């Protein structure tokens, strides 16, 4: 019998790997190795995107978060250890040790360890009660009951998580302030026009959006033993009141295990075009894996990346000749606005705005000189779909055509 494949981390990438592995094995492709899935969370793999959207707002039932029903894993003869951490790997002996004292042998190892949200240091009040980060189902379930009409929510960081949570909190009638250290919200991920669109959207929903605003520290109630957050002190000297705080200032890849095992790490667990680490028996997929794209080692924190890399590793291990060359896509829901992104805007030199076909719609098209890189589509799924199609097909429509609302995008995409 072939040696087992052990998957460390039980998120989207892991789910995608085991699904593809089983689908291939059922067709007689590959070696049908036994699978062992180890995850630190108490639950099987689930979709993370709804945590800051429909799940937190109560519009999606818990059961529907799970990528596969719980019994699926046992039906498929997948050994699962949830609530279990892997403490060390011995790549020479191909063994790993878990937090509950087991030693497990592997033939191949897949590291799907994900990323962790950055938190504020203790000296800035990061440990106070009432201060949240949002990554896991447990985080969402801890924060959701705090979303009570009339309370004051301070969001530190104007990225997707923070803005999505702001929208959910407004739905519940909280008083919401977003502070962003950079000049504009979404600065790290989007063009000024996309930032402008979302700033206006949140302002229309009475969110106080404060950019170029630095936090000095969170403050706490001074009465006795209660250490709960009660506000924030800003660099401009201002004091804000807050009943709860969400910290959404980005994430870092979980590389500790890989690093301790002697695997090359650079902006994540370094992998090649088949998601293989510097040890040929060890692969990595998802938020934690860094890969080369246009001469840079990048990581993508998205469902697309996790699902596609997990899928790819299963195919590689089964003997298929495939390499990772993604067409990234991403989405965000805020209020009644759906943002869909196709491509990667990294290295763009200009942007073009196209009005949407319906009121409230708009798309931002990113170019490096005349080369189309990416599209941010707000309430304009057609622009997203056609943009994605054009990027996938290697089409580079002239920015003038894109900017002209009289031009039908469908004709452009057929050229």
């Amino acid at each position: 019998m072939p040696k087992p494949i052990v998957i460390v981390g039980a998120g989207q990438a892991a789910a995608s790997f085991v699904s593809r592995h089983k689908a291939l094995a059922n067709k007689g492709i590959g070696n049908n190795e036994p699978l062992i899935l180890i995850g630190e969370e108490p639950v099987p793999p689930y979709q993370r995107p709804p945590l800051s959207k429909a799940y937190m707002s109560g519009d999606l039932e818990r059961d529907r978060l799970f990528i596969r029903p719980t019994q699926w894993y046992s039906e498929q003869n997948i050994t699962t250890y949830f609530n279990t951490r892997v403490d060390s790997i011995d790549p020479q002996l191909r063994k790993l040790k878990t937090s509950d004292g087991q030693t497990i042998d592997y033939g191949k190892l897949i590291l799907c360890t994900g990323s962790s949200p950055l938190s504020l240091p203790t000296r800035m009040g990061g440990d106070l009660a009432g201060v949240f980060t949002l990554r896991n189902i447990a985080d969402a379930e801890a924060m959701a009951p705090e979303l009570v009409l009339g309370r004051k929510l301070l969001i530190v960081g104007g990225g997707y998580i923070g803005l999505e949570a702001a929208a959910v909190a407004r739905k519940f009638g909280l008083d919401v302030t977003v502070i962003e250290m950079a000049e504009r919200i979404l600065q790290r991920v989007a063009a000024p026009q996309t930032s402008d669109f979302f700033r206006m959207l949140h302002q229309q929903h009475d969110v106080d959006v404060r950019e170029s605003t630095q936090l000095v520290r969170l403050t706490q109630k001074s009465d006795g033993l209660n250490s709960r957050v009660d506000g924030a002190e800003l660099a401009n000297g201002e004091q804000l009141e807050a009943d709860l705080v969400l910290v959404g200032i980005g994430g870092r890849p979980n590389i500790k295990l890989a690093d301790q095992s002697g695997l090359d790490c650079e902006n994540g667990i370094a992998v090649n075009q088949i998601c293989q680490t510097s040890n040929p028996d060890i692969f990595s997929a998802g938020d934690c894996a860094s890969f080369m794209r246009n001469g840079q080692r990048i990581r993508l924190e998205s469902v697309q990346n996790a699902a596609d890399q997990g899928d790819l590793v299963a195919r590689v291990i089964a003997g298929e000749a495939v390499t990772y060359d993604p067409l990234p896509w991403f989405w965000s829901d805020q209020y009644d606005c759906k943002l869909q992104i196709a491509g990667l805007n990294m290295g763009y030199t200009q942007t073009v705005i196209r009005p949407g076909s319906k009121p409230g719609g708009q798309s931002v098209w990113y170019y490096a000189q005349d080369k189309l890189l990416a599209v941010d589509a707000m309430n304009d799924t057609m622009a997203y779909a056609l943009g994605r199609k054009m990027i996938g097909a290697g089409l580079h429509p002239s920015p003038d055509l894109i900017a002209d609302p009289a031009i039908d995008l469908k004709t452009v995409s057929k050229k």
Partner: protein
Amino acid sequence: MAKITWKTEDGKEISADVKDGLNLMEAAIANDVPDVDGDCGGCLSCATCHVFVDEAWLERTGEVDDIEDTMLEMTDVERRDNSRLSCQLIASPELDGLVLHVPAP
């Protein structure tokens, strides 16, 4: 309630009674139909829940709108006239007995 049958390329059949209102991408995943992924959770962003509707059912599954039509051009297996994204098919009594063919990438 609608009885839905998925037929895979290697000749397997999976049938399930699906609650009214549930989309058939979620139903496929719940019933372990291979090669229907639904990575985006059904928000028309990914085109990974592609199916072919059995010819006999085409009238009842209705028209494909513009957006789905465009997303269908991004499927792994090339689309045909009877292609749908199964997240856009919603279980209802009218679809009781529906047969879907699952393409294998």
